[in-house]
């Protein structure tokens, strides 16, 4: 048997391991094992590739692998759990960059009249890689607060469409002529469109963007697989691409918006005048909050991005344990788009040692909301806004929300009366059964914990 055949057989095993690994992600109990299986698949694929006949010198590979490993492990170790969305954005960007580099490298490797198919996949891999790279870097900058405001201006969509057409044009000339000038235009314009495409998207829509970029990084790997004619890259890339697309769909559905609407227009343009909100805000003191919670038999905690900002997850866990000791049933209700990426809240609560069984999905909690004594809303706003249900003129009308207002009492922990990321007034704060506990979420909860002790 020649080495090429053996290598390809190893690739088959490796795709199998990726698939088994993903399958194990269907339950938190087996997920960690799944990740190990998947990494084993990657490891054997890399080792087998070293035996390819084309690979004659190992020094550059080895150097780059060692450097990448050191930086990768330190990043993974040092990153705070609250910064996980930034980390994922950055890793997406690196994936995009490496497809971009592989595409350009493959061009220089095959300078003599390659097939049309080859030049098409090369340019595809470069375009997707470049968009993923700059899009992810801007997403990263937005997530860590370096870039704050979404950038929107007149004619933005026409401008972006113009760039997109230019990319298609130069991709075409490159595929036909295989010339370096077209290639440079393609690279430059693709890097630009990555930035311009993410620029108008606001903070609350970030979960969609990250999922979409995740999907792009998979497509980029797929394209690179066509470039080097490697099945394993295609299988792995398709799995990742599918995962990103599904997450994107889930996020869009949870916001009741179409993907095109998220990508091409901000919340502000979602239309409609808002109704005047009638009623009064009722603030509450920590002492009174304690009395309410002390008497509660059934508490549901609804966390949002504000919990991540206040780093309140550990204090929240302590409070939930004290409530349980007090004979109260505690659950967490998590909206799919709470936080800055899919599953963001779950990871933070897991970090704080909250068992995953009591983390409930929105659809499981809403039907039993009326039986809940106290709902504690921590740093969430738009995802608990009853206007999405009641007010047809609200910009978020129709978005599925956690119906906290149907609980007997709602406690809202909030800094002040500022509106959410979408800039929409929240009638929840004016409901007769709502009490507002103003102040930093973390210190408020710590004070409550102290009262319980």
């Amino acid at each position: 048997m020649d080495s090429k055949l053996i290598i390809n057989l190893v690739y088959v095993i490796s795709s199998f391991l990726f698939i088994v690994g993903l399958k194990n992600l269907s339950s938190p109990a087996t997920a960690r094992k799944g990740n190990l299986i998947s990494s084993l698949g990657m490891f054997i694929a890399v080792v087998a590739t070293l035996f390819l006949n084309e690979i004659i010198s190992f020094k550059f590979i080895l150097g780059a692998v060692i450097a990448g490993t050191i930086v990768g492990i330190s990043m993974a170790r040092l990153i705070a759990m609250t910064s996980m969305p930034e980390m994922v954005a950055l890793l997406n960007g690196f994936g995009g960059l490496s497809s971009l580099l592989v595409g350009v490298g493959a061009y220089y490797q095959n300078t003599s009249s390659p097939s049309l198919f080859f030049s098409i996949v090369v340019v595809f891999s470069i375009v997707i890689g470049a968009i993923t790279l700059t899009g992810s870097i801007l997403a990263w900058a937005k997530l860590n607060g370096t870039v704050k405001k979404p950038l929107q201006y007149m004619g933005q969509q026409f401008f972006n469409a113009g760039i997109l057409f230019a990319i298609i044009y130069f991709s075409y000339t490159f595929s036909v002529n295989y010339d370096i000038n077209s290639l440079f235009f393609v690279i430059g314009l693709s890097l630009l469109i990555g930035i311009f495409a993410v620029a108008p998207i606001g903070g609350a829509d970030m979960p969609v963007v990250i999922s979409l970029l995740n999907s792009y990084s998979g497509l980029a790997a797929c394209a690179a697989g066509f470039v080097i004619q490697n099945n394993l890259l295609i299988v792995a890339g398709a799995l990742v691409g599918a995962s990103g697309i599904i997450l994107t769909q889930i996020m869009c559905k949870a916001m009741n918006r179409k993907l095109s609407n998220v990508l091409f227009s901000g919340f502000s343009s979602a239309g409609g005048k808002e109704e005047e909100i009638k009623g009064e805000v009722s603030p509450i003191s920590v002492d009174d909050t304690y009395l309410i919670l002390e008497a509660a038999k059934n508490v549901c905690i609804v966390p949002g991005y504000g919990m991540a900002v206040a780093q309140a997850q550990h204090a929240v866990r302590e409070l939930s344990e004290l409530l349980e000791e007090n004979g109260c049933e505690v659950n967490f209700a998590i909206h799919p788009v709470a936080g800055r990426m899919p599953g963001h809240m779950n990871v933070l609560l897991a970090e704080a040692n909250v068992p995953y069984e009591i983390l409930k999905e929105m659809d499981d909690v809403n039907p039993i909301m009326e039986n809940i004594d106290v709902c504690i809303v921590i740093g969430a706003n738009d995802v608990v806004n009853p206007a999405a249900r009641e007010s047809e003129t609200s910009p978020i009308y129709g978005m599925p929300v956690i119906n906290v207002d149907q609980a007997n009492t709602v406690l809202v922990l909030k800094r002040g009366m500022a509106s959410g990321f979408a800039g929409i007034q929240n009638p929840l704060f004016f409901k007769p059964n709502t009490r507002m506990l103003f102040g930093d979420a973390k210190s408020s909860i710590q004070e409550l914990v102290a009262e319980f002790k």
Partner: protein
Amino acid sequence: MDSSLAVSLTFILLLSIFLGVELISKVPSTLHTPLMSGSNAISGITLLGAMSLAGNSDDPTIVVVLGSLAVFFATLNVVGGYFVTDRMLEMFKKKDNQ
């Protein structure tokens, strides 16, 4: 590349997308963040392509340079992705092992 190879690669792509959709829709929302970082690590599979560029010293220098850079970033993606996913998944605990 001959057209029959192109067709069979596309065939594999199509089947893999369907398989991916089936697999991923079974992942609970609790695990969506680790799913993203874990699948992200898998997308670092471009490492294989990068290696075959970096390891061929017969190629022009620019190919080796681009390849080595690609190896670096793909490794970063793979190693960082798997490690951070493992770190997250380690934290997901059941009630009784607290």
